[in-house]
Structures are given as structure tokens and as C-alpha cells.
């Protein structure tokens, strides 16, 4: 590990830095993900900071990659808008410090509980600018909501974890912050019942905006949370309808206290329940109905089901490999914290071949976050 850090202050400087690099680069925004590449020079985007365009009436925001997410959220909040994919802040559970940046959120396709209905970070990305592995500056997409002009490299860059290029600018669709949020709480459900209840809610016309279940919640009992957001009259009506719909799963409580509701969903979003728990932190994406069975086989101390069961978070001893319990299931498991396993789920040969070829094309020298994605 070297202590060198490159901190370009503009896109042009960043392009020069990449072009001039003759050794691996470890790309970082706020450095909050614990993904540093060993034996590489750190390349920070923190110098590319600032929102360059914000049009609330067009629901559009453009920011340089190193802009802290918190700055963007504050700016949006002043106009009663927000990042609708609600990115996770995992500093607590990863034990890191620093300010998460919008570039890293985009590069990781970091999406919170709202993803289940609103869509993922990638669904809100309208455009990107990036520097590829040769130091060329590339722009794709734009600042408008509908755009099919040429290939969608915006999606390709989302979730590419810096391996195809270093993001320098991201343009995003933002959404109004709803007037009110309300939550249905079901206590003591088994995983299977919880997923069934969440599926029933998500399959109803009431536009559920979050559905999560923890085997062991704040009071150490199973808790299932289903969120509705909107104008007050709507939220009240929909909560009542859902309460009736889900009545046969058990007692359903309704919570609408703004502070409690917000804190509850931040707890889900940021995986707070795993703070201070030793072991490997896993993030598993599966078909919701496959989740309870998979979790039963893995047998973690606690499991947090987000996205209606489609995303499961677990802390496991290093010796346990959840991928071994996913035979025959569609999905993937990512090691978010810990040792002993590769971070990303091994890909099927056809997909792996395409992925490797793309990386070779965009980063022919193999200097961008080498080793991170295999």
C-alpha cells in the first residue's frame, strides 16, 4: 500500500492523471466503502465537487462526481425533493469515516429500501461523464428523462465500480418528497409469512414504497415493515386498506409519527442492526419467494430482508459461504465487508466473457480498480 493520493481538481486533470498512470489506481470518492485496492495509487474524485445544474421543475440535478451525497440531499430538501432511490449509508456497519459521494453511489448502483418500487440508482441516472482507462473523456446520456440516443453506457457505468472508467459527473432524475409517510408493522412473523405479507402488499394497488423484515428487530423480535408515502389523504386511505388486506397475517399496527418512521427506514436502509456485529457482511439478491429457504439453509444469527424479500443482508462467520446455498437459484451474493471470499458473485461463463472483454476495451492497461470485480 502506498500513501500516494492523486487529487485532480478538474475533469481534465483527472483525465491527465489516468493517462499518465503507469500503475494500478484505486478509485475513491469519500473512501467510505472499504474497497481500497492494495498496492495501488489512490485516485480521489473529491476535488470534483459541486452541483452544476438543478432544475426542480424538471426534476433534474447534475453534480460532479465528488460531490458529497449529503450536500445534494440538503439542496434537494430545500425544494422539497429527494433522491428517490434513497442510497444506503453503510459507514456505521462498515466502520468507515468520510463523506459518501454521488459518484460512488452511482458507481456502486447503491439503492436503498425504495428500490423495490421506485427503482434503483441506475434507473434514476440520466447521464454520465467519465474518464476511461486510456484517459479519454466520454459523455453518455444527458440531462433529459427520456433518451435512447445511442447505447446506454449510463447503465453500464452504474455498478461498474470504477472498473470501466472514473465517473466525473452524474446527472440524475430527482423526485418530490412525499407529504407524509406511514408504516404498517407486523410483529412476530416467520420469514415465509413475512415475505408472503410483503408480496401481498406489493401486489396490491396501494403503491407500497418499502417492504422490509428483520428476523430480529430493535427489540430482538421479528418485525415486518410496509411503507406508504404520498399526500395525507392517500396515505391514510391506503394504510387502512392494507391493514385489512394483511389482517390474516396477524395484528397490524399503523405508525405515522414522522420522526419514528424516518428513523425506522434509515435503520433498514443503513443495516444498522448489524453495527458492531463481527463477521462477514453479505448482501444477497434473490427472487423474494426464494429468500426464506435460502436464509434457512445459511442459518445466520439474524437476517434483514429488504425489497419485499428480494434483498437479504446477513452477517456470517468467515467459514460460511452463502453462495453454496444458492445452487439453482437466480441471484447473487456480494461480500460487503470481511474476508475469505471474493467480493462479487462469480458469473456464468457467457456473462464473464462479455464482462472481461468490456473491461479490456475500456481499460486496456487494466489499471482501474484491478482485482475488485475479479
Amino acid at each position, binding site marked *: 500500500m502506498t500513501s500516494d493520493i492523486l487529487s485532480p481538481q478538474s475533469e481534465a486533470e483527472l483525465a491527465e492523471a489516468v493517462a499518465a498512470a503507469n500503475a494500478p489506481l484505486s478509485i475513491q470518492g469519500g473512501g467510505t466503502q472499504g474497497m481500497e485496492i492494495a498496492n495501488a495509487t489512490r485516485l480521489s474524485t473529491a476535488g470534483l465537487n459541486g452541483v452544476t445544474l438543478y*432544475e426542480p*421543475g*424538471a426534476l433534474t440535478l447534475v453534480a460532479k462526481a465528488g460531490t458529497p451525497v449529503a450536500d445534494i440531499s440538503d439542496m434537494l430538501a430545500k*425544494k422539497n425533493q429527494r433522491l428517490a432511490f434513497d442510497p444506503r449509508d453503510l459507514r456505521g456497519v462498515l466502520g468507515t469515516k468520510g463523506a459518501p459521494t454521488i459518484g460512488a453511489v452511482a458507481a456502486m*448502483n447503491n439503492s436503498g429500501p425504495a428500490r423495490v418500487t421506485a*427503482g*434503483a440508482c441506475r*434507473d434514476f441516472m440520466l447521464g454520465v461523464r467519465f474518464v476511461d482507462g486510456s484517459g*479519454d473523456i*466520454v459523455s*453518455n446520456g*444527458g*440531462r*433529459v*428523462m*427520456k*433518451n*435512447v*440516443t*445511442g*447505447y*446506454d*453506457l449510463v*447503465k*453500464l457505468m452504474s*455498478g*461498474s465500480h470504477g*472498473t470501466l472508467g472514473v465517473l466525473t459527473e452524474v446527472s440524475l432524475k430527482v423526485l418530490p418528497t412525499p*407529504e407524509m409517510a406511514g408504516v404498517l408493522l407486523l410483529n412476530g412473523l416467520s420469514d415465509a409469512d413475512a415475505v408472503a405479507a410483503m*408480496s401481498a402488499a406489493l*401486489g*396490491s*394497488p396501494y*403503491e407500497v414504497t418499502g417492504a422490509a423484515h428483520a428476523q430480529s428487530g430493535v427489540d430482538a423480535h421479528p418485525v415486518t415493515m410496509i411503507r406508504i408515502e404520498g*399526500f395525507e*389523504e*392517500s396515505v391514510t*386511505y391506503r394504510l387502512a386498506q392494507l391493514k385489512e388486506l394483511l389482517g390474516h397475517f396477524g395484528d397490524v399496527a399503523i405508525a405515522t409519527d414522522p420522526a419514528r418512521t424516518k428513523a425506522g427506514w434509515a435503520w433498514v436502509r443503513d443495516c444498522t442492526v448489524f453495527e458492531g456485529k463481527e463477521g462477514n457482511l453479505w448482501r444477497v*439478491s*434473490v*427472487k*423474494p*419467494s426464494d429468500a426464506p429457504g435460502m436464509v434457512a439453509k445459511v442459518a445466520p444469527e439474524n437476517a434483514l430482508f429488504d*425489497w419485499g424479500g428480494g434483498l437479504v443482508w446477513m452477517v456470517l462467520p468467515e467459514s460460511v459461504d452463502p453462495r453454496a446455498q444458492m445452487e439453482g437459484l*437466480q441471484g*447473487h*451474493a456480494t461480500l460487503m465487508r470481511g474476508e475469505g471470499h471474493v467480493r*462479487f*458473485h462469480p458469473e*456464468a461463463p*457467457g*456473462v464473464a466473457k*462479455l*464482462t472481461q472483454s*468490456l*473491461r479490456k*476495451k*475500456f481499460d486496456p492497461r487494466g489499471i482501474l480498480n484491478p482485482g475488485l*470485480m*475479479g
Partner: protein
Amino acid sequence: MELPTPDSFVLSRKSEIVATLQAVLPQGCVIDAPEEARAYECDALTAYRCPPLAVVLPETTEQVAAALKVCHQMNVPVVPRGAGTSLAGGSMPTSDSVVLGVARLTDVLETDYPNRFIRVQTGRTNLSVSGAVEENGFFYAPDPSSQLACAISGNIAMNSGGAHCLKYGVTTNNLLGVTLVTMEGEIVEIGGAHMDASGLDLLGVICGSEGQLGVVTEATLRILPKPEGARPALIGFDDNAVAGACVSDIIKAGILPVAIEFMDRPCIRATEAFAGAGYPDCEALLIIEVEGSDAEIDAQLARISEIARKHNPVELRESRSADESAKIWLGRKSAFGAMGQINDYMCLDGTIPVSELPYVLQRIGELSKNYGLGVGNVFHAGDGNMHPLILFDANKPGDLEKCEAFGADILKLCVEVGGCLTGEHGVGIEKRDLMSHQYTPEDLEAQMKVKDVFDPKWLLNPAKVFPLDTSESRRGAQGAAV
């Protein structure tokens, strides 16, 4: 419109190519008689036609792979085709190409309500996907206006949108997985019933790649529960800028309608003459639809009306019933037909930042005068996707060229104000040569690198999307059509 010179070597081997395809496909899957192949000479961009060398209509994914393998080995360009409804020439053949149609792949493979997805073969029409889940209270959200005819394969190739994408997104936001057959004939599963990719988001770049990266034969699509109801309001204004400001205020107020449609005066007059929907004769008309229970809809429409009233509308009508809703939508839904009654028309598809609407409409009006061609504007106002309809006379020599030049000027204008060439129709051949107005050589190079990976010989739909001079070295050097 320039098309690449056909590969004379390929043309000279037609009988051999057809025989090899026939050898790997069941009887009746290969069409080589010129009079039958002619049916595939164009898509919905009917101004351009060219019969292909042959047409193959496989019945399974494996047959698609077999056909592609043959074409790959014999260096024959392949033009994938769904239902042939592209307005951009996305499935227009060249004379040295084999058209590969997925029209016979129409099965529903799996429907899963608890996990909210459907898996279909991609020759299935858009509307029939919704049809397959309707009885259970679900629908497939992207709804291009050709939805009765267009195929899911084409929707994926063009990343199709529709009137309701302000709320539900476009195809890419509703696509979970695909079975992709590469030009080399490899079958690759990408994504699935779960959410999001672990590694690179290949699904994201395949969607909208206009059939240039592979042939998608199966797709896993997200289905959504149907809302309890939906009703629109109709609001007329005397000024485009005021209509634009009203849209912006509605959005800023935190209301997210499912659709915000805009029509300008020429379009309103044409549709009134054609359909008699009872629209006011005004400068700008908005149709704004919201969803929910009856009471929720009433509350939202009341909020919208309250905002609209501050902008002094000349007309404000909230629908109270299905009948009234149908009447409000009638004019909008017949807009294209109405313009077609007046003359031939070309439908454009640029997107602009919503705030630029008044300026862009003013400039289009000026251009219309300069070119001496009429134009009407239909516009998905919530997301800035414009559909200017330019009127011309196909039988009048020079009119088509004039119309194309006018169209190109409008699209350049869209790019100039911060928008793009195409919001939902795709580039195809129609906007291919305008790409360099939106993208730098480096931008285009990055996109072409993706094609290099999926289709190293540049055989799949090779003469589309990228300006011919930009892609020439790749198409030539790889032994493909020059």
C-alpha cells in the same frame, strides 16, 4: 438516406447461404423467394425500402442460435426484426442481409404474481403481455402507442417508452432479464427474476442497443398491480410558455401524474376536425392523468386544478367518469391519424429539458415558415419528449428531402438546448447521421467498443445507429458489409 454498398460477395453466394440456413432450420423457416422476402423490405419508416437477401423465422432460441452461427461463419449481415413497427428504420434490411424475425416466438413461459414478473418469448406483442396478466390485476407498464402491434423484442431493442413513463419508466426500468443470442450463436442468460446485476449491468446496455449486440429471444419483465382507477383533467392555455409553467408548478408541488400530454394549436385544430373531441381552440392543451381510488383521484385533480387556475386557463375540465375520460383522451389518441388526414407526415422524437419548451416551440414555428411545411406538436410534457409531426407531400418531388432537412434542424435544436435526438423511437437509420451532433468522436468510440465486444465482426444491424463514416473501418475491416 445513404445505405452502405451491399457486399457483392455475399450477394453472389445467396443460394449457398439459403441452403445452409435451410439445413439448420425446420422447413418453412427460411424465406428466400423475392416476392415473399419483399414483405420485409421496410418497417414503419416506409420512406425507405430494400428487400433483404432472405428472411429466417426461427421457432426456438436454439434455432435463432443456429441461424446466427451460419450467418457469422459466412459473414452475412443480420437484421433482427420484431414486429417491424420501428419509426426509425431499426429493422430496415440491406440487400445483402438476412432478416431474422422473432415473430414465431410468442409464448408466455412463466407468470409469477408473488414475485411480480412474467417471462415471455420476445415475439409477443406488448399489449398481449399486459393481456396475459390482466385478469389477475396486473399490467406491463411501458405502453408505446404501437402497443397493439409492436413486439417485446423491438421494445427492448429501442428501449421503448410510452405515455405513462413519467410514473412507470421506460422499458429498461421494467426489464429484469433476457436470453440473448450473440452473433456467434452463443446463448447467454443475463439477469433474471431477481433485482439488479452483481457485476456489470449488461442488461442495461443491451436494452436500447437497437439489435446491434445480440438477438433477445426471451425476456423477464416486471409486472405491476393495476391502479384502482385513473382519470385525466384537460387544461387549455393561450400561451405555450404558460402551459409549460403550469407543468413545472404541478411537478414542484409534489404531484406525480402518470401522464402529462401537451398539444399545440395546429395539432388541436387537426384533431378537432378529425375526431371532434370538443377541445377548445387554444394555443396549448394539457391532458394530465392521475391514478388511485376515486377519492384520491378527486383530491389530486383538485390540487392540479388549483395550480392551473393560477395560470388563467381558457379551459379546465376534470373528468368525473370513464366516458368523460375517454372523451378527453380521444383527441390525443387520434392526433397522429388526424395529421395523416391532412397530408403525409414525419414523426420526430427529440427530447428537451422541459424549461426550454416555449423557446423550442417558437423556433419550430419559425423553421416551419422557412421550410414552407406545416408542423403540429404532440409532447410528453412531463419528461420533455417531443413529437413534432411535419406535414409533407410524398408525391411532390423534393418534399421528402425538405421535410428531412426540417426534421434534422429540429433535432439539432433539441441537442442545442440540452436535449437529445431521440427519446423513445431510437436512432436506426433515420437519425444515424445526426449522432455526431450529440456526441463527440470519443463518445461514439466508447459506444462502438461495446459493439466490438458483443459482435466483433460488426454483422448485426451494422448500418444503423453510428454515422456510416464513423463505423466504416469497423464494418470493412471485419469482413462484414462495407
